[in-house]
């Protein structure tokens, strides 16, 4: 869904390939990707420059400030690169408060240079903004006043006149080259449905622009138009976000259906768990538990919407219940089955799936001393709620059930009261 970051390797791959398609000119970009499954001999055969050139290696993990964190190694030969990678592949690092293992590296030729330019394009509501600076590199933030920005409205062409404020002060011998480079990159940005693109820095190699570092974001809803152009694009998860097996199971379900199924564990030992219908409502339930001061007890974020069928809801609910009951420590816990008033989702039908899962997991729910709180409205809600009430009596688990007459988040307060009451 929506804007997705891609790896530096893929950004450069797309740039090289489509720069040529759109302008007829080659960029001398060379790069190779290394992951756990890479065989260095095969890689060296495929990319012969690896054996002859001096190299740069760095993690390709969607986080920046790699140079400042000592994760970039310069001027190595291939053996040294392999050694560098071996020492770090799979090792956990902490970047900006997020911890995670490094799984992917990018190797490039080492390019000694003295010029560092900055280029950034961002898609905005009414057009795109393009920023450029002659003083790029890791000191860009210190030199922010030297960054020049233009705004190109949707459908406007990036003519020389429009581009002029960016390049006006450049020396004549590179001005034309850079202007054309910006124009082609902008065309490529639009053609490939980029939403963000940054080169910091790019320099010149043999008189041609060469990005030393590059970041990109694509609009993945445009995949249906671009799958050929993007070819095998990977959308890695944000750095530090490692999916548990249960989370990836739900992620797999989500990808197979037209409905939306989301599940993130926040605290496996949390005592308040949620399973909420609707993208908007699910956030508000999590908010409310936090706003009432019990963020630390919140086990998960979970959302289902877009009218999933009974079978999908069943599989999804099983996962949520398994996680919610995985740590029976004798204390009470609460499961919040919430939702707003649906526009068109058949409440009774989706509840059927949840009810089947609750029945299956009866003993686990009891062992975890689970209390269940339900609130929902929408088509057929009376039947759905009646079935939930009947279920409580049938399996002997406390279930409180509310309809549209109650406030949406009232059950959050009840859930908190339940877990805080003397056990």
């Amino acid at each position, binding site marked *: 869904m*929506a804007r997705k970051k891609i790896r530096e390797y893929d950004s450069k791959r797309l740039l090289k390939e489509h720069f040529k398609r759109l302008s007829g000119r080659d960029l001398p970009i060379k790069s190779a990707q290394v992951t756990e499954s890479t065989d260095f001999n095969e890689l060296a055969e495929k990319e012969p420059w690896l054996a002859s050139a001096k190299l740069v290696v760095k993690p390709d993990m969607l986080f920046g400030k790699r140079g400042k964190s000592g994760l970039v190694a310069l001027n190595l030969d291939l053996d040294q690169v392999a050694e560098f990678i071996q020492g770090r592949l799979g090792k956990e690092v902490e970047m900006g408060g*997020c911890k995670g293992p490094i799984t992917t590296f990018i190797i490039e030729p080492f390019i000694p240079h003295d010029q560092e330019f900055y280029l950034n394009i961002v898609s905005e509501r009414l057009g795109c903004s393009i920023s450029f600076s002659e003083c790029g590199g890791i000191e860009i933030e210190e030199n922010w006043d030297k960054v020049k920005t233009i705004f190109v409205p949707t459908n406007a062409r990036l003519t020389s006149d429009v581009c002029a404020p960016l390049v006006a002060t450049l020396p004549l011998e590179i001005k034309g080259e850079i202007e054309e480079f910006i124009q082609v990159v902008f065309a490529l940005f639009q053609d490939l449905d980029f939403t963000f693109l940054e080169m910091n820095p790019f320099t010149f190699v043999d008189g041609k622009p060469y990005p030393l570092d590059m970041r990109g974001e694509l609009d993945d809803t445009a995949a249906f138009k671009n799958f050929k152009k993007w070819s095998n694009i990977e959308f890695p998860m944000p750095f530090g976000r490692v999916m548990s097996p249960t989370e990836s199971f739900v992620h797999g379900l989500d990808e197979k259906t037209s409905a939306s199924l989301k599940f993130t564990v926040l605290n496996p030992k949390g005592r308040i768990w949620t399973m909420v219908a609707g993208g908007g409502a699910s956030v*508000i339930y999590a908010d409310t538990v936090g706003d*009432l001061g019990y963020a630390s007890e919140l086990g998960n974020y979970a959302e289902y919407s877009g009218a999933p069928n009974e079978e999908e809801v069943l599989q999804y609910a099983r996962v949520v219940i398994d996680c919610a009951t995985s740590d029976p420590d004798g204390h009470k816990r609460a499961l919040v089955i919430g939702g707003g*008033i649906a526009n068109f989702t058949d409440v009774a039908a989706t509840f059927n799936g949840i009810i089947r899962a609750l029945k299956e997991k009866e003993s686990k729910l009891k062992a975890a001393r689970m209390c269940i709180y339900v609130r929902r409205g929408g*088509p057929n809600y009376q039947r759905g709620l009646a079935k939930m009430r009947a279920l409580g009596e049938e399996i002997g688990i406390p279930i409180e059930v509310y309809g549209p007459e109650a406030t*949406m988040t009232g059950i959050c307060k009840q859930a908190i009261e339940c877990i805080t009451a003397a056990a």
Partner: protein
Amino acid sequence: MATGQLFSRTTQALFYNYKQLPIQRMLDFDFLCGRELPSVAGIINPGAEGFQKLFFGQEEIAIPVHSTVEAACAAHPTADVFINFASFRSAAASSMAALKQPTVRVVAIIAEGVPESDTKQLIAYARANNKVVIGPATVGGIQAGAFKIGDTAGTIDNIVACKLYRPGSVGFVSKSGGMSNELYNTIARVTDGIYEGIAIGGDVFPGSTLSDHVLRFNNIPQVKMIVVLGELGGRDEYSLVEALKQGKVNKPVVAWVSGTCARLFKSEVQFGHAGAKSGGEMESAQAKNQALKNAGAAVPTSYEAFETAIKETFEKLVEEGKISSVKEFTPPQIPEDLNIAIKSGKVRAPTHIISTISDDRGEEPCYAGVPMSSIVEQGYGVGDVISLLWFKRSLPRYCTHFIEICIMLCADHGPCVSGAHNTIVTARAGKDLVSSLVSGLLTIGPRFGGAIDDAARYFKDAYDRGLTPYEFVESMKKKGIRVPGIGHRIKRGDNRDKRVELLQQFAHTHFPSVKYMEYAVQVETYTLSKANNLVLNVDGAIGSLFLDLLAGSGMFSKQEIDEIVGIGYLNGLFVLARSIGLIGHTFDQKRLKQPLYRHPWEDVLYTK
């Protein structure tokens, strides 16, 4: 954007991509509000034309269907709202086509997952041409008592409970479509209800923004206060903050931005909506709530307190005498749909068709209770399938094998027999496969291919009554009936039909009893004594052997056997088998590109 009201009680829409339910919900809403004109003027369904029948209250109305946006706009020049239910793949192109029509003023896009660059094109065009885009990724919006987009506000019960059938005083705008319905409820609980509500959709770049609609509400005199539900991610709320700071909104605004929980997540998280992405302090719910509060909006401390904040603002307006009381009325009852009433157990209706041989409702189709996977995995043949669908039971393999042999033997008998001839003539006349096939099949009857049933009937009757072959044949002769299953144009006593021999061999080897066939052979022995061409033919062999199959398998009662013979099951075998050959003849003629057949004059005797 800005300016004021988008809809009225006479607004009509064009609906792109036919969806029965949302259109019906719009028409039900119209009826509830006492509208005289249905709010859907026309439907656009690419590639289709004609009418769709829908209910307007108790009555049925026919809404015209057009195949293109242009044709629909030309036919309904007063319909100025375009409701687009196209998929995310085609929503942008059809929305642009609609925006380009001079008659269309508002386009609502329901699809989720429209590419950002496409939406930006729509935004640019709408801005340049003073049009309004609502969505994508939205349920739409509603003007209470006047006009409703698609599925907005859900069921009739909910619309009545939220008093959306008549206008109140509150303008509401949110990102989330699901939450808009929740808020209609909340607002109805603590105020006199909604005047207009819009869900702008959860995308990064919605076609129109929260502030666009707030500014519009500010210009609508009947809107006395404005409620806004924002969401983390994006900067849309800040344009509202700017508008408030600049004093462009002079009505009280109650606002809440959801997503305060984002700080609980360590890494960046994409919530349910495309635009709801955590990251960046400015885009956080906390920062936006604070900014709105600083700009003068009433911002509660949590969503829980939102309702109270709305209530207090409304009560203050009442105290100040700024709210005139709403004229209440009881909306008419919407007749319940039959299928819903049946589902809820309120009424019952008789079925019009009964079927016992197959069921396609489950995970996989079943033939007589046997699921398709068993049929395939256990290596069933065509004979087994026939036994399931015709006889509703699994016959032993020798029986189904026998059925298959019959089909193979009868599949074709050359181009000169009447069925094949008809098929060939029809195919050569340029007709399609089905016409060619049935023109051949239509010749099957008492003279051609229809003798199997009769043979079985007469042999069975004679044998069961204990008639000797002599008595049987002579009694038939007296009645003037030729014995079916006996006689052949070419075959003779000393030159038997090979097919008959093959069937007899198979039956002798596999059947527990062949009494009917033996009786038929005795009859043949007698008829051969009268004339050398009165041999047992293939119809007679199949007919008599099928009687042995039915009686010998022990799986049919006497009554069932009589019924099978009476209904004409055995001709079914011939029709099925010969269809194979007739289809072959059709393909053969087409492949050979044979011209129209004309019978030669010389071959006709012209006489008076």
